């Protein structure tokens, strides 16, 4: 009897899930024997904004219902590709300090080539599509929602 429940992709509060738990969940996939590589992308808070302003902290807001639907769509569409066994996307919301983890994407693939393609794809898709917004709070006291 395996007591580990499959971990649901989607929006979580900051720190509610560890990367380790997501990888363990991929390792519990019934098709894990077909997996030869596990790929991980972790987005973290960088100090320098795109315009070069110095970031002090970050706020992530999410329309959970819509974001969860889109995250599931992205994972399911990528799992249909040849050699992609599992895809998990966990995006956090809340208040973040420098270098805090914002998002985890984990892909289990038969061979590494498919895995590299799929994780890049997954990141591009969640950045464009899921109903999540980030606000950079700068050291000069100003703030900006990024679009």
């Amino acid at each position, binding site marked *: 009897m395996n007591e580990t429940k499959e971990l649901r992709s989607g929006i979580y509060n900051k720190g509610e899930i560890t990367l380790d738990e997501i990888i363990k969940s991929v390792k519990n996939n019934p098709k894990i024997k077909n997996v030869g590589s596990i790929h991980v992308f972790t*987005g973290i*808070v960088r100090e320098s904004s795109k315009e070069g302003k110095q970031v002090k902290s*970050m706020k*992530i*807001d*999410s*329309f959970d*219902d*819509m974001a969860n*639907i889109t995250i599931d769509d992205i994972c399911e569409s990528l799992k249909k590709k040849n050699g992609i066994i599992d895809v998990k996307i966990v*995006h*956090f919301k809340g208040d*973040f300090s420098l270098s805090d983890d*914002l*998002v985890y994407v984990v892909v289990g693939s038969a061979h590494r080539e498919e895995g590299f393609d799929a994780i890049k794809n997954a990141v591009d898709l*969640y*950045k*464009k*599509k*899921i*109903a*999540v*917004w*980030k*606000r950079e709070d700068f050291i000069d006291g100003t703030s900006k*929602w*990024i*679009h």
Partner: protein
Amino acid sequence: MLVEVLYFAEFKDITKKDTEKFDLSSKNLKELIDLLIKKYDPMLELLLDKKNESLSNNISVIVNNKPIHGQDVLSIFLNEGDKIALLLPVSGG
């Protein structure tokens, strides 16, 4: 007729609320947008295009978790209890 607006990102910062109920007399989105802009000045620039005539191209309208597409979004009908979200372009972390 009561409808509920869900606020995210800038809208949450402006209103300091997660959601808010509005009582509409007409049944279309335009009345709701007018009420929002009347109550919250900074929403004008976010919601309307430069001529203040139609919804900004940046805004996606979601009603009951369904995206609304089409040319004339302002004239779509709303129903009692609808949950409306007005979304600016997303920016995942």
